[in-house]
């Protein structure tokens, strides 16, 4: 494990709360505003919820990231669940295969600065989002 890296395994709804609280604490520690910390915590909540709902278990990794001039936070949600068949469809607002409000992925993308998704049917899904400190 690298320094500044926090891993939270996601197995239940209680882990969703743990992950988002750790994310908020890290964001505040890095000097993010409480507003941005809330956006980060909310994104973690949605990503962790997708893991519990669709893959049952997985992991959230929080990392401190650096560019030449800025610091930020990176969140990776990974699972070995069923994967997403149609990523383009999943990135449309309101799309869901579980009767819920949707995967929330377009929303998470709006909350964060960068969004990447890699998913293969039958193998799992990895979503990485980043937020840079202003």
């Amino acid at each position: 494990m690298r320094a500044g890296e926090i891993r939270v395994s996601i197995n239940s709804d209680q882990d969703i709360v743990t992950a988002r609280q750790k994310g908020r604490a890290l964001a505040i520690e890095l000097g993010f505003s409480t507003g941005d910390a809330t956006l980060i915590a909310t994104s973690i909540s949605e990503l962790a919820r997708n893991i519990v709902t669709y893959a049952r278990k997985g992991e959230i990794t929080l990392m401190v990231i650096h560019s030449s001039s800025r610091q930020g936070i990176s969140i990776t949600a990974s699972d070995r669940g069923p994967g997403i068949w149609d990523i383009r469809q999943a990135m449309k607002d309101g799309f869901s295969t579980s009767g819920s409000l949707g995967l929330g992925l377009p929303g998470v993308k709006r909350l964060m600065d960068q969004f990447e998704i890699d998913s293969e049917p039958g193998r799992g899904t990895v979503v990485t989002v980043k937020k840079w400190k202003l």
Partner: protein
Amino acid sequence: MEVPILKQGEVLIATFQAALSDADLEHLRRGLVQQVVKFRSRGVIVDVTAMDVMDSFASRTLREIAHMIRLRGAETVIVGIQPEVAFAMVQLGLTLEGVATALDLEEGLAYLIQKFKNID
């Protein structure tokens, strides 16, 4: 962590203490609806001032609570959504459509009392 429900005359007040899990929210939904029936309450205030995150599950559960309670003939008002939580909800595309909201407990009570007056 369970949400305490306080009875104040015809109104029930549920105050969220901190970060709630999905199970806590479902427990609250059951408890509130049961108590509205038991006490023949006419109004419910859900105070979310202390809530750190309002994600899709939490906002859906709050909407369901309000709709179930309306079917019982009572009114629900959500109070204390923090500005940064509201901002995140809008970005995420979450709404509390059809659910009354107020700034704080005091305004929520005033809203309910006005509603009761209109009905009586």
